[in-house]
């Protein structure tokens, strides 16, 4: 049945299939209590990281720009989302609706941040672009470290100085500078994470296989040729960047609302790098690979806990080895020839089997 569809559609259906099957299996196991608390606790972060990986893949893999500040958009979404969720407390009854509103607001806010950052950034290329995204990530972190937001009867209060200068009466502090946000309502669930993955996946896959996506990939493959066929390079680089930022913001909101507290420090350069590692290991531009690598690499450090002190060292070695093995030309060619050999042998066997069955008359 699948064979009748074209290659891209088939590949996309497999991707959706993997996500859906994985969700159903995990949800079933979790409900049956067959998986450990440790893994259950990882489900929502895995969902968030998958969304982040898909969204970063849009910039790094599809648009071909190196971004080192993805965590910045994640944090914008995270803090925006939890403020919105807190504002809806008492107004909107249903948790799911509240979460949805918060995530959408987070996406919108992160998109705005994406436009503000993207406009200047898109004038640059290559490593210079990378360093500027890094710089913006650090700036966002620095600003959030000095952001104070509180809510009382008269509404929201903002300050860039201190919690005391919010001038609130009997309200709650939502974001308390470097202490971050505490007392977050834990609205995120595995199911909502799954839905967000589907949404992210749909947006990105649809985008890739559309006129806009082709223009983005054209710019990646050959900027000058893309210009020469009339594609506005800046516009399409910006579209990829902003969509990616918005999706990262949504994932950030999901992530933040899985914990009761969150600090700006979490969204630093290292987190940006972590997501980048997921993307590169999964294969740049390879959405399905990114999903798998994000899930596995989030679980891996937890699986390595039994090693104790050597855990992160082993993680580093695994990272280096995987990168070398998957990119070393000599090793790859050896692997290919090995695979060829295996296939030939099995082909031979198959041919032999066919031959023996049909009495050696299989070849015309």
């Amino acid at each position, binding site marked *: 049945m699948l064979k009748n569809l074209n290659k891209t559609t088939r590949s996309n259906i497999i991707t959706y299939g993997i996500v859906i099957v994985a969700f159903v299996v995990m949800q079933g196991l979790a409900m049956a209590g067959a998986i450990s608390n440790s893994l259950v606790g990882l489900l929502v972060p895995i969902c968030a990281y998958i969304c982040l990986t898909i969204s970063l893949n849009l910039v*790094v893999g599809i648009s071909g720009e*190196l971004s080192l500040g993805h965590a910045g958009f994640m944090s914008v979404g995270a803090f925006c989302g939890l403020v919105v969720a807190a504002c809806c407390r008492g107004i909107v009854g249903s948790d799911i609706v509240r979460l949805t509103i918060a995530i959408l607001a987070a996406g919108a806010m992160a998109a705005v941040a994406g436009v503000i950052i993207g406009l*200047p950034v898109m*004038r*640059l*290329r290559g*490593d*210079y672009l*990378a*360093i*500027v995204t*890094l*710089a*913006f990530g*650090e*700036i966002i*972190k*620095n*600003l959030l470290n*000095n952001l104070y937001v509180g809510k009382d009867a008269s509404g929201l209060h903002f300050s860039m100085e201190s919690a005391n200068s919010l001038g609130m009466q009997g309200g709650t502090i939502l974001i308390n500078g470097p202490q971050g946000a505490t007392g977050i309502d834990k609205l995120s669930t595995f199911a909502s994470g799954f839905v967000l993955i589907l949404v992210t996946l749909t947006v990105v896959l649809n985008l890739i296989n559309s006129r806009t996506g082709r223009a983005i990939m054209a710019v990646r493959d050959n*900027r*000058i040729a893309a210009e020469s066929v009339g594609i506005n390079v800046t516009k399409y680089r910006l579209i990829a960047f902003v969509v990616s930022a918005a999706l990262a913001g949504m994932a950030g909101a999901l992530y933040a609302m899985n914990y009761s507290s969150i600090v700006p420090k979490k969204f630093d*350069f290292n987190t940006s*790098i972590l997501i*980048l*590692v997921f993307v*590169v*290991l999964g294969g*740049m531009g390879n959405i399905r690979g990114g999903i798998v690598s994000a899930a596995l690499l989030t679980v891996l450090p937890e699986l390595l806990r039994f090693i104790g*002190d*050597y855990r*992160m*060292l082993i*993680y*580093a*070695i695994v*990272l*280096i080895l995987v*990168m*070398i093995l*998957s*990119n*070393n*030309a*000599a*090793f790859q060619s050896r692997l290919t020839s090995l695979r060829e050999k295996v296939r030939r042998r099995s082909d031979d066997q198959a041919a032999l089997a066919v031959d023996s069955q049909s009495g050696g008359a299989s070849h015309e």
Partner: protein
Amino acid sequence: MGFLTNLINGISLGSVYAIIALGYTMVYGIAKMLNFAHGDVIMVGGYLCFISMTNLGLPPLVGVLLAVVGCTCLGIVVERLAYKPLRGAPSLAVLITAIGVSYFLQNSALLIWGANPKAFTSVIPLPSVSLFDGQLVISSVTIATVLVAIAVMVGLTLFTSRTKMGKAMRACSEDKGAAQLMGINVNSTISMVFAIGSGLAAIAGVLLCSAYPTLMPTTGSMPGIKAFTAAVLGGIGSIPGAALGGVLLGIIEIFAKAYLGTQFADAIVFAVLIVVLLIRPAGLLGKEIHEKV
């Protein structure tokens, strides 16, 4: 006087950034890779010097020498094992490997030397210079750092322009294929660059720890990122650019703290970087490379 003090402090901090940035820029110029592990080589250099001085009781100069030798070897080994197999691989793959190396070095240091910070004794056991009746105090480390930064920059410039090896490096930087055809051993040239870069990192580590005397497994990461920023600011690949970028970044950082408030100092430093890159997209002294159509 406050201005002068801040300026001197800025130059001092900037000189440390400059030395690190020079290593970054050398490696980038030839290997075309962002070596995110560079900051961690700095940390290793610091530890090696610390051990030789404190645990082995060797004189500071020997300690520095040991650190340089140790880091040079480390650089060569890392290059052989981790980067060389990836020659010709996509640059992002190399970047991630460099990050892996960075994690590896940090966690190895954690296991070997422990998490407790070490207080680094300055390798320059000279008193501070006091001017204007003690209103302006310049520490000996500051003076040494600035002098070393200048020496390293001049040395590298001469090396790349005058020596055979240096010229081979520049040839590799321009076009590896052509360089190979001219009989230059590209592989050994790249190894050489890593050796030089790592040796510089050791010197930077010793000076960094002398000026800001805490040594931890994570000591190198932030200065590493700042120096990378500095290298880009000056135009990555350019030797005078790295030195200029480093010093400027140091001055901007100190001035931002002193005159615009310590709260937003980091944001200001990075904002300056962005503005500079928007005006000069290839950095202050970088060459803009036009793609040939």
